[in-house]
Every structure is written in C-alpha cells, then in structure tokens.
C-alpha cells in the first residue's frame, strides 16, 4: 500500500539544499547508489525521477525493478540534518506523452544539451525517520541493554 509523503518530506524533496540519493539493486542483488537531485514529488503524490541516460546502471536496475516488483530506496538529508529513507517501487515509466515532454524541455533548459531517457514514477511504500535524535531515543527506549556501562558509571 502506498505511504503518504507528509509536508516535511515534500518540503525536503523540494529544497535544493537537500541531498537526495537513489539506491537500486542489480540482478545479483548488488546495490547501486547515486546522488540524484532530480528526485521530486509528482502531482499524484508519488516520487518522480528523471533519468537522463538510457544506458545507466540505475536505469537498467529500475527496469528490472518494474519488471520483477523489486523495491528501491531513496535517502534524503536536509540542510539542518533532517534524514529520511523512503522505500518504494517503480510503477510507471514515461517515455512519451505530455509529462515526458514537459520534463524533457525542463532538463534541457536547466542543463543544456542533455537527453531524457525516461520519467520514472516511484510509489512510496514506507517512510523511515532516520533522524539521529529520533533513532537514539527509540533505541534507548526499546533496547536498554545496548549501551556502554561507562556512560552510566558514577564518577
């Protein structure tokens, strides 16, 4: 079932100062990770990724994912250290049509003489809060054994 991307995540994805990373896997299960600032939220609430290179490993892995229902992962880090992971599955590839042409024109306006291989639509399935403060509080609450004793010692 699709996960909802809340306002904070949408804002992070739209913020040019955020770092966005897309992780896919190949046929052997080996991860392939790339920084991709073009990741954004589409009008339908799904993630949208513009792939410029038909021959890229990411593109091939995305094809494999849509063919075999494999998940991909997106990591976002905001300028104030906010950190989220979104797991999702590619559900559609646009290689023609108005959405494709809109992004084709846009990437060429921004980047010059480049091509656009596809516009990928990724349905988010799970959002994981990777903020350190949140994760630390979770661990201390749920796993009280997982700490070094000297942190608790009387000095």
């Amino acid at each position, binding site marked *: 079932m699709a996960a909802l991307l809340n306002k904070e995540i949408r804002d992070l994805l739209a913020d040019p100062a955020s770092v966005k990373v897309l992780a896919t896997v190949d*046929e052997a299960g080996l991860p392939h990770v790339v920084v991709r600032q073009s990741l954004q939220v589409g009008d339908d609430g799904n993630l949208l990724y513009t792939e410029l290179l*038909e021959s890229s490993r990411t593109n*091939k892995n995305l*094809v*494999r994912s*849509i*063919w*075999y229902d494999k998940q991909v992962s997106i990591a976002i880090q905001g300028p104030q250290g906010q950190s989220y992971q979104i797991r999702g599955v590619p*559900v*559609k*590839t*646009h*290689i*023609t*049509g*108005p959405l*494709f*042409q809109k992004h*084709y*024109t846009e990437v*060429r306006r921004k980047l010059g003489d480049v091509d*656009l291989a*596809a516009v990928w639509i990724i349905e988010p399935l799970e959002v994981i809060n990777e903020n350190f403060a949140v994760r630390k509080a979770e661990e201390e609450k749920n796993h009280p054994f997982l700490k070094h004793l000297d942190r608790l010692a009387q000095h």
Partner: protein
Amino acid sequence: MSLALVKKRETELSLSEVVEKYPDVPRLIALKIDAQRRGVHYTERALKTVDDTVQMRSPYLFGSRDGEIKPLPESILLRDGTSILTDPTPLEQNPYLVDLVDGRLALVDGDETVEFIELWPKPLYYDKQTSSGIPMSHIVSARPQRLNIFQSSYCHFWADKKECRFCDIVNHTKQQKNELGVPSRLKPQDVSETIREALKEPGRFTGMCLTAGSVLKGEQIFDHEVDFYIETLQAIGENFTTKKFPSQLISSAFNEKQLARLYEQTGLMSYTSDLEVLGEKLFNWICPGKAESVGYQEWKQRLIRAVDIFGRGNVGTGLVGGVELAQPSGFTNEQDALASTLEEAESLAAHGVTTVYIVWVPRPGSYFRDQQNPSLEYFVQLARGLHNLRVKYGLGVDFDDYRHCGNHPDTDLSRLI
C-alpha cells in the same frame, strides 16, 4: 475461432503458466507477445474515451487481421514504456479486449483485468500537410519514439507471384490507395518536409526506419532500390546538423558496393535485411523470390559483409517468428523449430549480425492466411533465446530496441543489457 484452433489453444500454456515457467522473461513482455499473437478488440466504451490526442491507425506496410482499414487507435503502451503493436481482431479469433475498467483502459481476457494500458499519443505533425497537399501522416507514420518511412509499398517479387508467403504488402497497398489515397511511392521532398516538421516536437523521436518492398531493377540487382533509398536519405539528411543520424534501413540484401554507397553517401547508421525464416529449405519455400534472386547462403553472407561497413551492433536480420512452423513444409514440433532457429541465429551472431523477430500473425491478404501461429510459450522461448545470444556475443541492438522499433519482444529484453 475454428474448432482446430480452439483445441490447439486449450493444450497450450496460459499467460500465467508461461510467466511461471520462464521467470527470466518478465510478465509485461510475455503479455506483449500474447497480445500481438492474439490481437485486440476495442470495446465501444473504450473507444468512447478516445480523443484527438490519440494516434489513430496510420498507413502501414501490412494489412490487419480483419482485412479492414478502420479508424481505431494505432496501438497501446504498457506502464513500463513497452509498445504493443497489434491489430484490431475479430472477436471470433479470441483476442484480448481493450476495455474500460474503473475509468481506465485495460487489457481484459475473459473475466480478468490483465493490465492497465494507455494509447499512443499523436505527434503534432500528424495534423499537417506537405506543400504538395498530402497529409504528413501518409508520408511518415509514428511510433512512440520512431518515425516510419515506408517509401514504396510495392514489392517486385509479387510480379512473378514469388512473394513471401506470409506477406500481404501488395494487397494492402492497393487497399490503402483506394480507401485512403495513400501514395504508393513517396517523393523525397515530401519525406524531408515531414521529417523537418516532426523534429520540431522536442523529445518525441529517437530514430527513424526506412523500408519498402524489393526493387529488382538495375545494372546489378537492387541498384534502383539503393538509388531510391539514397535519394530519400539525402533529402532527410538536409534536416540534420550532423552527417550521421540515428536511422535504420530494412531492405533487400545489398552487395558490398551498394552498402558502401549507402553508408558513404547518406546519414544511415544501421542496416537490416530480413531473412524472414532461418534455414535454407524453409527460406526457399516461404520466400521464393528472395531465394531465386539472391539465395539463402548469399543473403547471409551479405549480412555478414555489412558488419564491416556499418559496424558490429549495427547490422541485423529480422524474422517473422513462428512462420518456421507453417504447414505443410515447416516444423511440426515447436522444440525442433526453436532449436534450429537459434542454431542459425547463433551462426550469424558469431559474425556480428543480430537476429530479431516479430510475432507472426497470419494475414487475410497473404498466401498463409489459413495458417495458425504457434504458442505463447514458443514465442517467449524465442525471445529469450535471441536475447541470450546477444548477451553471449556482446551484441548491442540500440538501433532496433524498444524505443527505436518497439515491435520485437526479444529486443525489449535488451533494456537490461
């Protein structure tokens, strides 16, 4: 559907069974093959959703399954960007339905909604005419990312009744000329104007394909055919800033001198000459004109020599996949047919020639009109076999892949290479 066909289909594996048996062929590609094999029928409520942004059926070399020319959507797109070129098919032949399900178009089989689909968008140039007053869609037809230039729809093998047995090109040419006014021979100027207009639409096209029937005339056989292609390609080339442009020619088997002329005098980047069926005995039966004019072995040699001119990964041959099982002289067993076809395809791959296939659909205007095409399982095995040969021999097929053609289930798999 005839009783014999019903009984045959009942013994074949279903789509889901084939997908389970061959997990390395994705379900969407197996579905594409099945939709091509069986055809589609658009329901009335599906057709009510079609507006003028949709590409309707354009002039084409070959006729449709029902022998009619009707204003129906050209074809369909799956959610992964795969094109399915397929014909409107009479209901009695058990096609997939294209129906409206929950407000969306879908491929439906019986009670099952198999997959949601979209229709091809119409390119902007389709609404324009050339300066000579011909609709541009009659000069150059479109696929989602490819331009088709069918510059002459007459094949001279038909003159001596030596046409390829699966082909209906001449009968369909007459029908298109009579019913639509499609010119049977294109003028290079019209082609150039249309290409110029097509290129104005950003991001729409990645390649073009020229093809036509065989022309035997000339000092050497096919010289006039070569002359016509050179003239047309040079006219097209006026629209590009580079000498070479992504392009494919599917033609008769030209000799080295002819191929060199094409390569040196035009912007052409790849060359395909269809053997149609692999194996000399079947070639002689199914393609009598090609057999008599050039012969199977020499056709293969011309393909191999083309690699020296166009480069490895830029030369191919096309098959009408499944026609090797046509009766009475074809294989009677699908496994034997597959083994033989792949063995021959491997001999070509070893020399840098890639083999691709289209799904054979017996057409009413062809000699083989009463034949039956093979099972889905056969076509799936053929797709993976040809794909695996490309992997084994390191053969790219960019010039004939899902964007630059979209009609070969085997090259759809090359998206993973």
